[in-house]
């Protein structure tokens, strides 16, 4: 019995980590006022870049770095279009998803059927051998710990540093931030690139830790769930952890519930993340104070410096 609990928790952690990584990046971009709907596309490009490099060099580390780099580069296309060319953020994000889906499939054609070594789980002698607690707390792969560290770092950055305050100011009122003299466009570029890097990292996780092979469209909508997650967490970093693990458990359950012989409509379960986010949206819309506190007021609006 104990063994089953352990493997359940380990599976949930693996299902939740890519969601948490991608959502953390998107949260920073949205806090700066940029709605990037291209998460799915950036994840796919990150996934194929990480997989290709990991297969070619045999190094997971280089693969992960390649995934992050590819995510940043893809997000630069978005940043250039929306921030410098002032194109619509929604349309550009969708275009980025289509482009990333196509590009990753095109590159990935040569890599179908190959297998890469799975990202190893850490092993601390003694600690990792404790039953249940060992594998759960001291036996995950390194990116799981990185994902938690990054959430804490993002929280610290956004709410405990001056730069984070500036970034939130830009997201709340770009005109006011601009009038004070903050470089709105530059800050948004950096926020979008961070989001891209995190999406790329999430894609890399999908390709070399969640799976060990490449398949077309392998992120299977996780980019969209990450977007829902940011809203679900009402733009607060620590709530991302709650949401990511909730949504991760739901995804795991909807996949495996049939195997348990339980007659629960599995497709309805897979819709739960979206449905619960709608409920959260409706609920917070009643509480005007909370919206004002957390939702970036300039989200999705194009900034055009007058004069």
């Amino acid at each position, binding site marked *: 019995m104990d063994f089953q609990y352990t493997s359940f928790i380990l599976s949930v952690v693996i299902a939740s980590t890519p969601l948490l990584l991608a959502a953390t990046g998107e949260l920073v971009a949205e806090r700066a006022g940029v709605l990037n709907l291209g998460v799915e596309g950036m994840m796919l490009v990150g996934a194929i870049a990480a997989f290709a490099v990991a297969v070619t060099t045999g190094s997971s580390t280089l693969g992960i770095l390649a995934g992050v780099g590819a995510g940043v580069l893809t997000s630069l296309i978005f940043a250039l279009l929306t921030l*410098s060319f002032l194109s619509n953020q929604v349309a550009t994000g969708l275009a980025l998803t289509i482009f990333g889906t196509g590009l990753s499939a095109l590159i990935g054609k040569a890599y179908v059927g190959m297998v890469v070594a799975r990202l190893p789980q850490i092993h601390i002698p003694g600690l990792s051998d404790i039953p249940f607690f060992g594998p759960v707390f001291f036996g995950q792969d390194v990116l799981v710990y990185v994902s938690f560290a990054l959430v804490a770092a993002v929280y610290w950055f956004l709410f405990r540093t001056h730069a984070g305050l500036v970034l939130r100011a830009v997201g709340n009122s770009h005109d006011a931030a601009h009038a004070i003299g903050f470089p709105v466009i530059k800050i948004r570029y950096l926020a979008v690139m961070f989001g891209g890097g995190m999406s790329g990292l999430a894609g890399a996780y999908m390709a070399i830790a969640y799976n060990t092979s490449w398949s077309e469209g392998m992120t299977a909508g996780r980019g969209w769930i990450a977007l829902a997650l940011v809203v679900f967490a009402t733009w607060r970093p620590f709530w991302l952890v709650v949401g990511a693990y909730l949504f991760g458990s739901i995804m795991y359950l909807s996949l495996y519930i049939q195997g348990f012989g339980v007659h629960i409509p599995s497709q309805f379960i897979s819709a739960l993340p979206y449905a619960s986010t709608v409920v959260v949206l409706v609920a917070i*819309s009643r509480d005007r104070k909370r919206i004002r506190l957390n939702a970036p007021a300039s989200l999705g609006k194009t900034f055009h410096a007058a004069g």
Partner: protein
Amino acid sequence: MNSDLVLRFGAGAKVFVVSLFAIVLSLIVFGIFVVLSGVNPLDVYRLMYVGAFGSWFSWQNTLLRSAPLLLTALCTALPAQMGMVIIGGEGAFVLGGLAAAAAGLLLSDMSVPALIVQGAMAIAGMCAGGAVIASAGALRHLRGVNETISSLLLSYICIAVLNQMVEGPMRDPTSLNKPSTRALPDWAMLGNIPGMDIHVGLIFGLLFCLATYMLMFHTTFGFAARMVGGNVRAARMAGLPVGRLILIVTFLGGAAAGLGGMVEVAAVQGRANATIASGYGLTGILVAFLARQNPLIVIPVAILLGGIDASGGLLQRRLDMPDASVVVLQGIIFVILLASESVQEGINLPGWFRGIKPRSSAVAVAEGAE
């Protein structure tokens, strides 16, 4: 008045030229991708033309693929006239298809005339699709919920409902590998346009575009709706029923996409299954943006993208290029066309894009005074 007309024509011509330039540029960028994958780009261009517009056969293929895009684009373009960014077209399309299949199967068992079955399917599809998008509109109006995010979420819920229904209650037990509903009887299916190999869904799409263009730009209703999009508070002050306008227009948008789903079921697939959710909704959003949310301009844009889509098969067969190549081209076209919009408006580009910085009129006046 004449000068106004000239001005409008001039602006239109400028948009046309810049868009054409953007498409040519996209083809060049795509050519670079093609060269990198070891294929002669000139072969690709030639085959794409042949596959999309080279013969009557390929024209028919192109028009077939543009039909659903006409309808899903309206799902974004109509609410956009009221300043709302709706991206739930896929959900409305899917739920419309499911509802149409349900209505069609129910009525065709009762041996009623084909026309009534088809009419009921169309109405069911439009109502289901309309309800999805109208609920995003209602959430926005009543609770201030961001309609972009809520319509996206609703869209995923709709896809889950479709999967659940075709895997559960509505499943045909004989569809083993690919869960589907029962097939519609042949007599209940939508036919082709006389003399062509194109189903009547194309006509639905064209009529919907023309009718909604007239509605939005040549009636008082459309004027009121666009006024809400321009300035909600002014519209309220003028006594316009803002909530009702939002509900009607979002319903219409959703109904268009839902009709698209009905056509997919009643003319293409013949049944509802997971393949209905194949991305027409997503592409439709981009068609709407490229058409600048104008229902009339949606028509040529949808045909262009339908053509690119149609040429994919030929590229795959003749040059052994992956299916995804045309998706990459679509992505590039979207990206470059979106960028070209601000180039023609000439605003806020960084100095190194603009070349010479335009002098402000104040400087020019000062110099003139010297």
